[in-house]
């Protein structure tokens, strides 16, 4: 384990930054390049990097697959829920203008849903594939 000390330190610094960058992309999506999909991938990358450096078990403990599953479902529910809410508020489906706070809030909520789902699904796929390979012993690094 000690052999990767540099990697570990560097990634511990990087991972929060990656997540923050993800959030930046997420919120920037409202008025520039970016959006929930890209942000979701970036956030997932943060966790994947963690898994690569600290091991799959660690990552699974940090973000359990069950949580990721629920996240994936939750994202869809948020997205579709916004649509339902807009119906409840008297607009058409996904009519942002009737949501309090207007279009910004509506789009933001939807994008958060996308982020959640994309990040979770990326992770789930990674877990699924990574779980199949044997652990690489230290000597082979």
């Amino acid at each position: 384990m000690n052999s990767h000390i540099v990697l570990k330190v560097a990634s511990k610094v990087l991972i929060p930054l990656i997540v923050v960058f993800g959030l930046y992309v997420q919120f920037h999506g409202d008025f520039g390049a970016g959006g929930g999909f890209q942000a979701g991938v970036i956030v997932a990358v943060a966790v994947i990097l963690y898994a690569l450096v600290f091991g799959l078990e660690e990552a699974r403990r940090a973000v359990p697959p069950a949580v990721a599953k629920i996240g994936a479902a939750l994202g869809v529910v948020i997205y579709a829920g916004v649509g339902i809410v807009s119906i409840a508020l008297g607009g058409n489906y996904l009519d942002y203008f009737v949501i309090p706070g207007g279009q910004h809030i509506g789009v933001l909520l939807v994008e958060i849903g996308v982020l959640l789902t994309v990040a979770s699904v990326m992770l789930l796929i990674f877990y699924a594939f990574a779980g199949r390979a044997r652990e690489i012993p230290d000597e082979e690094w």
Partner: protein
Amino acid sequence: MTPEIAFLPGWLVQHAPPLLVVTPLIAGVIAAVLPSARASWGIVLAITFFAAAMASFIAMQVMEVGVWSYALGSWAPPLGIEYRIDGLNAGMLLLVAVIGFLCAIYAPASVEAEVAPENRSAFYGAFLICFAGLLGVAITGDAFNVFVFLEISSISTYALVAMGAGRDRRALTASYNYLIMGTIGATFFVIGVGFLYMATGTLNMADIADRLQGLEGDRTVQAGFAFIVVGLGLKLAMYPLHSWLPNAYSYAPTLVTAFLAATATKVAFYTLIRFVFGVFDPGFGFAGLSMIWLIAPLAAAGMVVASFQAVFQSDVRRLFAYSSVAQVGYMLLGVGLGTAAGMSASFLHLFNHALMKGTVFLALGAMWLGFGVTRITDLRGMGRTMPYTSAAFVIGGLSLVGVPGTAGFVSKWALLVACLDRGWWWAVLALGAASVLAFFYVGRVLEMMYLREPPQHDGHAVTRSPAPLAALAPMWILAAANLVFGIWADIPVRLANAAAAAVLGSAP
């Protein structure tokens, strides 16, 4: 608003189109993460019932009032995404929703026998998502949205098929093969849509149709047409692009087979009709020629060759999978005719085929549940050991052959008349040949079921063991529909004529 649905709350009626798609979608993801499979099934049952009810309301409304356009996010079409329901897809929505509900009734029996316990919630989730995707394809008026929903349904279908691995490991390769082929199809389709966007600058199908007028000679449009037809051809198992289908149908869980056979290819077929007749114009030189030289000959070839293959199968679900390929040929033939009568006949056959294949596959599913048999020779004496299931199967089979008094006859007759109108004798011949072959492959199974003694087991004949009610009820509803629509053909014929009127502006 028609008086029949006046008792519903106004918001439900007004927002029925998106709710029809979104509720199964939300419920699907929720069902997927629930810890209890029973609870998931409860959701599935409730939601599919809700969807069936909504679809009937929508269909009634459309029949009474006419086209129903719903602008998502209040963005007026053609800018925003539009859900657009007319005579063509009202029937499709009804079909998918009702079949979905019937399959949901049957689901627990199949799932508990065939799907690994840890996968069951996920199975129900995938089922609902697939259901939502199919409804979405049918309901949307936006070409790209069609692609999205097509993929939603397809991807969940791959998962559903793969879950057959609990029973037979070959489900995994079947699913993988299906995935590859389905993805190629989807890619072709989206490329075609891209071409259309390039040529017209819009994704709204009605709008594309308007703007295509006068662009007949445009190479981009022509390429778009070619890609869309071939892409959808893959999805709907047009001969010879069908090879994913037999494996997928034979190794998927029995529930999935019944559901897919009755809905998935039908929805893809609906999309083909929508594009060929609704977006493009059969009057376009290239479209008309493609129908005569590409679709119709392949349809005829599919009818005959796939029927032949069906005759020689030893696995009974595979047999009926090939029969499905042949039946798709019938429908494509109707499209290939390019006339209103042909389209109407083809739509009618789509509807009726869903009924008969639903019956047949549900019955075969019940037989598998009862005895774990899939080979034709294993069905010996089934008429005695599972009398009700076999009787339903007989009705479905006869309908498939096209015996008068069953739904199959009505649509085959309509197709025959449409061919005669056009003077296509070769098509009539192919129809006849395929029907005779159908008589043989169905007859082979019936002979096994009724004229052979039940197999011996430890020196005793296998005892009677009727299927559970949850399997019998949906099977018999479909079987009864086969008979009812064979005699009172009014409702489906009206739907089909409305469909023809919706895309061609004239009923046959």
